[in-house]
């Protein structure tokens, strides 16, 4: 190996201002300093300016009472700003999760329809895609909203099926199934069932591998969980004792000094950094143990070490985070204790039929039913239809991108049409479909913020009301941004994890 010697010689001869390695390091450090000081400057400037104009930005409004009434959500009369924003987040998440689920299903149908052998189905698929993706989503939402408002007005005797199913200009209301007091104990029984299902599935798989008989292991696994769920309805009070354990944990957390989480988090931060660095070094070591690191690699190692030290410093200087973890941990386990310390006869689930109440002149849906307001419906149909058009194109493109030779080779060994699709075409197509579809999920989440146009109480709408009342624009916007950012990043992480797992092995 001559590389190290030339490397050393270069160090001896080249003057500092011409040494590429020195220059790189100087550039990295310089850039870091510039970025950090710019951020610091902007933050202090903004703070000074706001103070000069007598605008105080605090997050106090989160704990103060607020006068707001929401059309729907987990709490229609929130008592604090935090509670109001939390209701909005839940509403946004509710519509995003439902939207992602149904947009995916519909998108697959649309994509397959566009590849169909049937002329009519193919044309319908094309029409769906071309129409929906070429009209702005906002316009579509307003269109659905205005169509839905033309439905008949709600009255005490309306509905297609009175008392069970109602459709009116206030939305759709149907019976609601909800979790009741015994749910958490029941969940424990299901958890035990999941463990059992794991072994049942493995056992059935082994039989299939050994005998060739089709034993449908996955169906058996699902069946086991279902069986435990069914039995759990009757036997779930057997888990009441877990309340005591949670209570003990809560008491333990209450008695811990603040130093305990500080030490724990510091050790974790240092440990993670140390583990990352040692792994990084092993990954960059050749089989013979020769270590070759570029300047970038050195910079990354330095950055990892620095970051962990900064975390430790912050933890020690600022006890807020540590005490917050202790307190909320204690509260969490107290809540869990309450969830388990219930009457043994409590049901895991309950159901209620929709109701219509008339308090003043106009009747409206009551709280009992599962009500889909027209605001929700407009946003929901908007994002689902719109995104399904894009996902459909991804599905179509992904399947077309699998070379024709693949399905020919699969057919040539005798696989049937369904088998070709299942074992050869789809596993390859999914790798192409997934990344752009992940982007569509991100778009869907962000597009739900258009709900403000049709009066659905999502985070943006509630946030607007909140800052109109309190004047705290910047804090509310900061909360918006942080919320959407963390949701988007979570989706990205999940999609990327799948991408990495599914990558084809090449040379």
């Amino acid at each position, binding site marked *: 190996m001559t590389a190290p010697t030339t490397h050393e010689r270069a160090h001896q001869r080249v003057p500092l201002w011409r040494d590429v390695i020195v220059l790189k390091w100087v550039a990295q450090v310089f850039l870091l300093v510039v970025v950090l000081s710019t951020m610091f400057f902007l933050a202090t400037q903004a703070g000074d300016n706001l103070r000069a104009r007598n605008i105080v930005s605090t997050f106090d409004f989160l704990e103060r009472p607020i006068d707001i009434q929401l059309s729907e959500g987990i709490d229609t009369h929130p008592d604090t700003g935090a509670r109001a924003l939390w209701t909005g987040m839940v509403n946004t998440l509710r519509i995003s999760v439902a939207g992602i689920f149904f947009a995916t299903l519909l998108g697959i149908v649309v994509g397959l329809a566009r590849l169909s052998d049937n002329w009519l189905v193919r044309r319908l698929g094309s029409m769906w895609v071309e129409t929906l993706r070429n009209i702005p989503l906002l316009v579509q939402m307003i269109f659905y909203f205005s169509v839905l408002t033309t439905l008949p007005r709600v009255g005490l005797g309306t509905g297609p099926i009175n008392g069970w199913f109602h459709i009116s200009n206030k939305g759709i209301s149907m019976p609601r199934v909800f979790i009741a007091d015994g749910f958490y104990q029941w969940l424990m029984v299901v958890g035990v069932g999941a463990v059992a299902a794991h072994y049942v599935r493995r056992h059935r798989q082994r039989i*299939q*591998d*050994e*005998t*060739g008989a*089709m034993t449908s292991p996955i169906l058996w696994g699902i069946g086991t969980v279902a069986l435990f769920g069914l039995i759990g309805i009757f036997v779930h009070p057997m888990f009441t004792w877990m309340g005591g354990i949670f209570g003990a944990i809560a008491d333990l957390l209450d008695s811990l000094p603040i130093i305990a989480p500080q030490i724990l988090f510091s050790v974790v931060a240092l440990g993670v950094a140390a583990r990352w660095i040692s792994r990084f070094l092993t990954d960059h070591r050749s089989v013979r143990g020769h270590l070759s690191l570029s300047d970038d690699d050195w910079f990354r190692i330095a950055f990892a070490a620095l970051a962990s030290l900064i975390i430790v410093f912050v933890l020690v200087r600022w006890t807020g985070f540590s005490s917050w973890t202790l307190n909320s941990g204690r509260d969490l386990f107290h809540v869990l204790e309450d969830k388990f310390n219930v009457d043994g006869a409590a049901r895991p689930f309950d159901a209620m039929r929709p109701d219509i109440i008339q308090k003043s002149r106009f009747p409206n849906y009551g709280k009992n039913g599962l009500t889909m307001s027209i605001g929700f419906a407009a946003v929901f149909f908007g994002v689902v239809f719109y995104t399904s058009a894009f996902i459909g194109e991804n599905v179509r493109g992904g399947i077309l991108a699998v*070379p024709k*030779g*693949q399905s*020919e*080779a*699969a*057919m*040539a*060994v*005798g*696989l*049937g049409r369904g*088998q070709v699709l299942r*074992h*050869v075409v789809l*596993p*390859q197509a999914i*790798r192409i479909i997934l990344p752009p579809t992940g982007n569509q999920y991100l778009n869907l989440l962000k597009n739900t913020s258009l709900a403000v146009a049709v009066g659905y109480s999502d985070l943006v709408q509630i946030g607007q009301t909140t800052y109109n009342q309190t004047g705290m624009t910047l804090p509310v916007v900061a909360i918006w941004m942080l919320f959407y950012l963390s949701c988007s990043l979570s989706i990205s992480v999940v999609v990327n994890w799948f991408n990495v797992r599914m990558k*084809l*092995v*090449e*040379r």
Partner: protein
Amino acid sequence: MTDAAAAEPADDQGQTRDLSNARDMIVCEEVSKWYGDFRALDKISTTIKEQEVVVVLGPSGSGKSTWIRCINRLEIHQEGRIVVDDVELTNDLRNIEQVRSEVGMVFQQFNLFPHLKVIDNVSLAPIWVRKKPRAEAEEQAMAQLERVGIPEQAHKYPGQLSGGQQQRVAIARALAMEPKIMLFDEVTSALDPEMVKEVLDIMKTLALSGMTMMVVTHEMGFAKEVADRIIFMEEGQIVEQGTPTHFFENPTEDRTKLFLSQIL
């Protein structure tokens, strides 16, 4: 599976084998096919006997690949009859799947399944079409991989193998279904020159073991050495056919002579 030990050893050149009493494996009667106005196959009629090795030669665009792909219905012929091992290829899905599971095919571009390991490529069809237990299917897949000389690659992915190794896996994959007939569609055309021999050697061994084979190729050496019969095609028609000696030494048709003068 055609057992190598039980098969009668063919003589050196494989040219003077008398197959006239053997069973008919592939019967083509007046097979025609059009792509739009272009006539790809023009009344092809011939019969291929059991254990016969037929090499199909001809300039590119002469319909060789189209014909061979008609035999397991990757292409659909529009006129005439094709009967494979007493099963006629019609629109009947059951016939098509039966023929496909008895006819192995190897392609120019390998077409291995890149998301499956080599062993899973080979055992996929036995498990799902023949409904064999996985353990047994994998054991047989290993046996096929040993037959083509690359058992040590069983747990790699196709993308990690060389072209010649990939094509040998493709042969093993076709053999794993224990076919009665093997179709080879220009299997050495996409290979680097140094890898052509390893694939041809396996095909020779296969021919000697008594497999019925139909081979589209440009390898004249292989045709001379292994073929029982050579079929020369041009513009979708069979121009001339005969033993390698007849074909290479005194062809009767002018077009054959022209073709030979261009390639030899």
